[in-house]
């Protein structure tokens, strides 16, 4: 049997060290590929190392554990089984008990050895069942969908976008926007004939949009439903959207693929 490999993402050094030591004691065969200290590194390292087990602290700088898991679910390669995720948190504000029997496990800090031993047993059991593992990604995606809360809608709906282009401010009716695309610190507002940047984040923008008119289809893309021509699945199973009024296709991440199931 291959070595089981793990990755730990925990921003507090002493806690990371403690978790590592306890794990080594409880599960000597486990090969821990490293400890990362923030959410961004958690995503890049997990994608690079492709561990079997991923310990994710929920409250981390850069990205929360939940965001990191969601991003991993979107970017994980098709041919590699998704890691078993164990969320680690000091205070269970997300009601993670729901996970205990399901795809991901969770442990509370301070981690007691007995509780961690239980998790280790569960992980071993699940790693032995290959069929279970293949379903892992789908399940985690489904759970994240329910867990990452929909941002509460703000009372005022955005109707007009004011975007600075050079020395003028362009007024763009929201209904004319075909899609919004997140870039580094900006959001690109794309209409049939123009693209303009506004200085905001998709996270802040989303609650101001009508959820029936604009759908998030990827962590970086929000699309106007009226401008979707069709959803196309390619040979590898990846979903993308053909648009009215734009030539480029938008890719749909696994997390949002359920929106395009046929009726």
């Amino acid at each position, binding site marked *: 049997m291959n070595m089981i490999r793990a990755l730990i993402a925990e921003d*507090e*050094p*002493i806690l990371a060290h403690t978790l590592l030591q306890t794990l080594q004691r409880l599960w000597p065969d486990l090969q821990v590929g490293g400890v990362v200290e923030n959410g961004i590194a958690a995503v890049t390292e997990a994608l690079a190392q492709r561990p079997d087990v991923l310990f994710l602290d929920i409250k981390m*700088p850069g990205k929360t554990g939940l965001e990191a898991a969601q991003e991993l679910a979107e970017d994980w390669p098709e041919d590699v089984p998704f890691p078993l995720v164990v969320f680690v948190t000091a*205070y269970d504000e997300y009601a993670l008990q729901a996970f205990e029997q399901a795809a991901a496990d969770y442990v*509370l800090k*301070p981690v007691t050895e007995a509780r961690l031993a239980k998790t280790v047993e569960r992980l071993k059991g699940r790693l032995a069942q290959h069929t279970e593992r293949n379903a892992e990604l789908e399940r985690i995606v489904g759970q994240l969908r329910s867990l990452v809360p929909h941002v509460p809608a703000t009372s005022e709906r955005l109707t007009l976008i004011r975007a600075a282009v050079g020395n003028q401010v362009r007024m763009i009716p929201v209904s004319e926007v075909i899609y919004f695309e997140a870039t580094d610190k900006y959001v690109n507002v794309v209409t049939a004939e123009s693209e303009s940047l506004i200085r905001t984040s998709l996270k802040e923008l989303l609650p101001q949009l009508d959820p029936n008119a604009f759908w998030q289809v990827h962590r970086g893309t929000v699309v106007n439903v009226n401008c979707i021509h069709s959803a196309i699945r390619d040979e590898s199973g990846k979903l993308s959207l053909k648009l009215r009024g734009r030539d480029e296709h938008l890719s749909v991440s696994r997390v949002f693929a359920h929106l395009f199931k046929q009726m």
Partner: protein
Amino acid sequence: MITALPYVHGYSRLRRFAIDIAITQVFNLIIAVLITYVVRGHGGFFVNLVFSMCIGTLATTFIDGGRLILWGEQKPPKLKFIVLIIFSLPAAQFIGKLLAAAMLGIPREALSAMRAGNATAMLIGGAVCSMFIIWFFWSREHIEFLRAEAEAEKARAASIEKQALQAQLQMLQAQIEPHMLFNTLANLQGLIAVDPTRAQHMLDQLIQYLRATLSASRSEKTTLAQEFSLLDAYLGLMKVRMGARLSYTLELPDALRSLSVPPMLLQPLVENAIKHGLEPKVEGGLVTVRAEREDDRLKLTVCDTGLGLDEAPPSDGTGLGVDNVRERLHALYGNRAEFSLIPNTPVGVIAQLTIPL
């Protein structure tokens, strides 16, 4: 006011009436004894008892029954109640006498003669007795009413006290965040195994932080030195947790150490700097807390190199701590205090408050 009647109305009134009638019988007996042996009216004890029973029971039936039918167990309006009594008493006297006479087989003529004999005495005696009974019932009602009111008052006071306690508890919970507490404990747990000396030191800091936080919420004034030692304990704990990602300096001139200040003014600002500025920042950074004297004013500054005002995640109530500080400053000093929150250069936030000395 009696807020809620505990029983179903009809049953409760009937029960009440039965009790009142029973008490009336005791009075009737006493009156019969008085008339026979003290006033020495004519007729034997038995005759007087029958008269007394008839008149008394009827009087109670009219007055008490009328009251219960008209107003239930609520306090009756005084004037209407007096009218009820004025009509009920003579009626009870008249009908009661007839009834008693009929029961004892005394002929009508004898009764008239009896009435003629000591009419005034009987009338006055009857009135006095009735008044006494009414007074008894009335004051019993009144006592009960007062007792109910006192109980309602007590319940109200208890609920106010509960609210105050709840508010205090919420304040404590806001200060000692579960995240902070459990993460600190987890670090302690880890340190005990690898570095007991540091664990000991961390435990001391936790104790100091908890003690200061818990007592500060109850006291109205503290010294600047105490406030800074609380900050030192808090930042010390965070330093153990965040490791190299956090550095901090505290600048308190000796001359200002014993100055008296309201507790927990700086604490929320420092916690904001950590929570919204440095903890979510991958590289971490520096917090500086400084106290300075400016003429007759005290200037307190919390300065961080964290994410800054724009970058902080907007979701989790960044403004709450700041609003709280602003409100408290206004309540304590009115317009004589100032508070500002400005961007630090190149990154981070400077929170500054100025209060009169």
